[in-house]
């Protein structure tokens, strides 16, 4: 994208190993809690890979282990073919991280946030200035160059975090809930940039609990819950496998459930809705509206949300 670097040793190295991240039975246990329970996954080069799951599923803990910040309790983990336990510094040099909680340096200006950060990667001053300028342009923050962090909006902070994570031209970009707490405009802005980065061949791993975000962005994803990976696949494949058909939805009432029972159609209930999976949605919808004049019926294709709720249940998580 914004760089004109020649192919470096790092890139060559990466071509040699197939996986950017490889985890087998990866486990993280705290004293009285298993945060990540024997999960296995792999991320290949150029992929936009997602970890989807409710709060507390173990997504962030997994990211922390990949970033070589949190040591694993068990299992195997390789990043760029190296072990985080022994090669943390080398691996971190090639990773860019956008944390869930903003940790921009409030003591420094927007521009200094980028150039000071670059120093921690041994990037020379001239190089750092050039990259900072390019990245601010890419993220449409040129006008905020000398602003202090406090004065930035939530969306701008997030974009600056992204810019900062790209300062070292990373071979792997990790984003922990990249659009959490942002308004729709700011979310779309971030998505647009992420898709652009993916198109340029960046390997990106993100965690999210937004289903639309996962469905829209990810090439492949895993759904995590209670420290385990439930399923993995592309968003489309997951919907095909687990939902398979279209969905007819209607308000919950005893008459409707009695009717569906009587014509031997199985249904699910969630919240105030009755849901029926079917390959003939129109037909069922017509029968329902014929039977109950006043009823509100919606037909729609199955979505990642249906997969997600089916697998994780509807209970509210703290």
């Amino acid at each position, binding site marked *: 994208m914004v760089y004109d670097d020649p192919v470096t040793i790092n890139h060559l190295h990466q071509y040699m190993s197939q996986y950017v991240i490889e985890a087998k039975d990866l486990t993280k246990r705290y004293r009285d809690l298993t945060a990540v329970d024997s999960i296995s996954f792999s991320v290949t080069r150029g992929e936009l890979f997602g970890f989807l799951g409710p709060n507390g599923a173990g997504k962030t803990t997994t990211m922390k282990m990949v970033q070589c*910040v*949190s*040591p694993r309790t068990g299992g195997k983990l390789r990043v760029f073919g190296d072990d985080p336990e022994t090669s943390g510094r080398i691996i*971190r040099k090639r*990773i860019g*991280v956008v944390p869930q909680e903003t*940790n921009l340096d409030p003591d420094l200006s927007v521009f200094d946030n980028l150039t000071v950060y670059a120093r*921690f990667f041994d990037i020379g001053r001239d190089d750092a200035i050039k990259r900072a300028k390019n990245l601010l342009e890419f993220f449409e923050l040129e006008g905020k160059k000398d602003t202090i962090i406090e004065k930035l909006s939530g969306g701008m902070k997030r974009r600056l975090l992204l810019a900062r994570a790209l300062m070292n031209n990373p071979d792997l970009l990790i984003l922990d809930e990249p659009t959490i707490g942002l308004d729709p405009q700011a979310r779309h802005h971030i998505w647009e940039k992420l898709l652009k980065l993916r198109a340029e061949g960046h390997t990106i791993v993100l965690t999210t609990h937004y289903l639309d975000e996962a469905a829209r962005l990810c090439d492949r994803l895993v759904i995590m819950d209670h420290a385990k990976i439930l399923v993995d696949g592309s968003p489309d494949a997951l919907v095909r496998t687990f939902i398979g058909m279209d969905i007819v939805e209607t308000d919950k009432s005893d008459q409707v459930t009695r009717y569906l029972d009587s014509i031997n159609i199985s249904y699910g209930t969630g919240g105030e809705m009755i849901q029926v999976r079917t390959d003939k949605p129109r037909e069922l919808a017509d029968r329902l509206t014929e039977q109950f004049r006043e009823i509100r019926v919606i037909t729609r294709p199955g979505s990642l949300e249906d997969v997600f709720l089916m697998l994780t249940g509807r209970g509210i998580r703290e």
Partner: protein
Amino acid sequence: MKIKINEKAGILLIGVSRVWFRNALVFRRNIRVNLLPPFIEPLLYLGAIGFGIGAYITDIEGVPYIRFIAPAILAASVMNASFFECAYGTYVRMYYQKTFDALLATPITIQEVILGEIFWGATRGLISALSISIVLLLLGLASPVGLLIALPFSFLAGVLFSSIAACFSAVSPSIDTMSYPATLFVAPMFLFSGTFFPLHLLPQIVQVLALLLLPLTHVVSLIRGLLTETSVPLWALNISWIVMGTIIFSFLAIRLFERRLVV
């Protein structure tokens, strides 16, 4: 083998200097606010205690009272600057600003972060020592040669106080609990380390406790020797305590921060 160790130490040192540099840059941005207090503070103490109380005291062991307390004021301000930087400054960067999290996502290691913080705290101490030296020099209250030797030494003392503060910072559950070491450790040190009166005026048991537990005692004793050009009877003990303390508390600080942050 030896080359490998040197190489590792080199990488560590570069990392430490990068962390140090970040803090120095922020300090430089606010230089006007940051540089004024170290000049004002010694003048207040010299004025109130030196000239005020000093009017009733002619001299202590042949040294005019104001010259007797001048080295103590220098030592105490090194302590204050270093200690508070690594107590509150470090805590704020770790807990509120999440600066450490940001640093630890780069190739920088936790050891480098903590040592960078400690050396930065010591630098704050040195900056204080430097400004007070100028005041003392202008007022003719200290030996110029003594001051020259005292400056690098105050950096070492700064490392000691910073590393102790870093230990407290690492175990403090909240910023409020930091007032415990401030009132139970720093404040007594300021008063009972032979700062404003000679240590031997205290009951013997308190003297022993001061030598054992209050590192400022040793710093004051050495700096006083340098600035008033008098002999320091306990110099060997003073130097050993400071050197050993610096090493022990630096390692301890790293260990405690690892326990807190690497989970």
